[in-house]
């Protein structure tokens, strides 16, 4: 259990740090966001609502400590405040509408990118000296291309030029959101380009990481033994070399996930995809500080959750850690 308990403790502390950061940022940053906001919503909202929003972003006479207490109390009740741009919508409800779009899109695309990149990395290491070596400079280049540029090029080629896929949105606006076949087909065709962008953007990192780990693993004695035992090439490559090379690659997942989430936010924006990344962009544009804060918190907590799931996988895959975890 030790490993898992340590990880859980870490995530709890990190979540606390993120929540506290979220509380402190609006209160410590220079400038006065409330003025920007008030000038924007002049006459549209009532005095009480203005006060509520002010309190939320830290313009208040109460002491910092009592503000912190209130902040936690609200948070535990699932209250993230009122959105300004979607007024009078609650931040939690607004986020709820976009969350699943992002979870499905980014989740599926990340999984595809990871599997494809890892397999290509295995192949690149196994067939070292073949044409796959020429893949490396290309891959290095792709690893450095910003996601939004891939998105834009995909959009202009496959969306505008060829017209294969829709240019923006998550589904045809005239359709009712639901489990109808038509809606799902529409949502799928809208998600192809954003998902492809995330896959292309993330695949290079997995490929290079896996290739390098494979090359290190291939010189291990147990791979040589597997070959000497007369096992089939597939078994040696996957069951012995790749299976072991995978472990450090998985433990590096946390950092990669940060990059992918960052890339996805910009990708969603390019495609006006109805997820929380595009929402964050709109919140900033509209000076919707409560929504912005709420989104930062939710995105961070989702990333922590994803990391924890990856930790669980790691425990399942590595008997040495599993022993410790028992």
């Amino acid at each position, binding site marked *: 259990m030790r490993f898992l308990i340590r990880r859980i403790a870490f995530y709890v502390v990190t979540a606390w740090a993120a929540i506290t950061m979220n509380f402190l940022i609006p209160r410590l940053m220079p400038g006065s966001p409330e003025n920007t906001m008030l000038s924007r919503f002049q006459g549209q909202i009532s005095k009480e609502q203005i006060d509520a929003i002010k309190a939320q972003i830290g313009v208040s006479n109460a002491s910092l400590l009592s503000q912190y207490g209130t902040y936690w109390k609200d948070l535990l009740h699932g209250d993230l405040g009122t959105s300004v741009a979607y007024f009078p919508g609650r931040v939690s409800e607004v986020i709820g509408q976009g969350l699943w779009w992002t979870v499905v899109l980014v989740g599926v695309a990340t999984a595809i990118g990871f599997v494809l990149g890892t397999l290509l990395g295995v192949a690149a290491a196994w067939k070292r000296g073949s044409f796959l070596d020429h893949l490396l400079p290309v891959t290095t280049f792709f690893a450095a291309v910003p996601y939004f540029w891939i998105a834009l090029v995909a959009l202009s080629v496959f969306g505008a030029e060829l017209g294969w896929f829709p240019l923006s949105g998550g589904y045809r606006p005239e359709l009712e959101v639901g489990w109808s076949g038509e809606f799902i087909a529409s949502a799928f065709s809208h998600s192809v380009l954003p998902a492809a962008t995330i896959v292309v953007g993330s695949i290079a990192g997995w490929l290079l990481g896996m290739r390098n780990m494979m090359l290190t693993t291939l010189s291990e004695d*147990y791979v*040589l*033994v597997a070959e000497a*035992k007369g096992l089939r090439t597939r*078994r040696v490559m996957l069951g012995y070399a790749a299976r*072991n090379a995978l472990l450090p690659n998985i433990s590096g997942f946390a950092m990669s996930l940060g990059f992918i989430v960052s890339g996805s936010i910009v990708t969603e924006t390019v495609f006006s995809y109805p997820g929380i990344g595009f929402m964050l962009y709109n919140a900033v544009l509209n000076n919707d500080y409560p929504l912005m804060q709420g989104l930062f918190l939710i995105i961070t907590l989702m990333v922590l959750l994803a990391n924890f799931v990856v930790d669980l996988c790691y425990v399942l895959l590595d*008997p040495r850690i599993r022993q410790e975890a028992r």
Partner: protein
Amino acid sequence: MTAPATVPAPIPAPGREPLLEIRGLTVDYGEGPGAVHAVDTVDLTLHRSETLGLAGESGSGKSTLAHAVTRLLRPPGRIAAGQVLYHRKPSADGAASPPVDVMAMARNDLRAFRWEEIAIVFQSAMNALNPVHTVAVQIADTLRAHRPGISRAECRDRAAHLLTTVGVPSARLSAYPHELSGGMRQRIMIAMALALDPEILVLDEPTTALDVVVQRDVLAELVRLRQEFGFSVLFITHDLSLLLEVADRVAIMYAGRIVESAPAQDVYRTPTHPYTRGLVGSFPPLRGPRRDLAGIPGSPPDLRALPPGCAFNPRCPEAFGRCTRDIPLLRTPPASPDRLVACHLDDPKEGAGHDD
């Protein structure tokens, strides 16, 4: 457990029937004029039911040779020339099939040949087992690769039997490598090597990574298993004293070449090549009175820049003119018909007299 010093003569007695014939084997690292010959035109024969020892310093090419025999070399290492002829057991009706050249085998034949005929126990038991699979899985995948259609239960029984054979409780089948001690791991490697009842066991420094007490146990176990299963052994080590105890015949390697090979007692009693003499003189006598120990002066050769003539000449106390000109070839000296030695000192044409 018997102490190896008093191990009885192996049964059955070593025959003269060749099992594995290495002919002119050359292994290069790199290509073209810059290539390094890690193994240079080696001729060596392992006979049926024999324990052949191969000794040499690190860098002498002995491990490279072991890997080359089953074509396990990693690039940039490659087999530049030579044959490895394997003589299959005569079939039941007594008809002997012609020997097969391992170097020329097709991929699938090679895969079937590996472990079925030649199994290898590597030096580092620490790293030779896959850390993410249990012992049972690693034995079972060997069985499955060579015996398609074998049932799970058969696999399990066979694996359990193998473990008990090498003195490991069969409950350890479900253990992962990190849960086992070094000695236990090496025993399991041996059990795995015996899984298909191979004709030949290559032991590549099998006890070097173990501590001394465990070394003795594992060695005794190997000697016992050899008597029980009757496989032939190619035993590779830098420790000549160890070989003199367990091997029937010993070959000494220097700078990628065999410099002397002879029955173990002959190597010990009358080492002929100056290098062998140096090696035998560098460890305490197995029995009898103490004698002064002497090392070999100089340092191991740089394979990239071997001296002309005999590679050993810069360190040889008895080198003379010809040694820096001609590479000595392996010959049988007239005095001892069982021996092969590559040295100009014993060349009849040269006589004992040095020309300068």
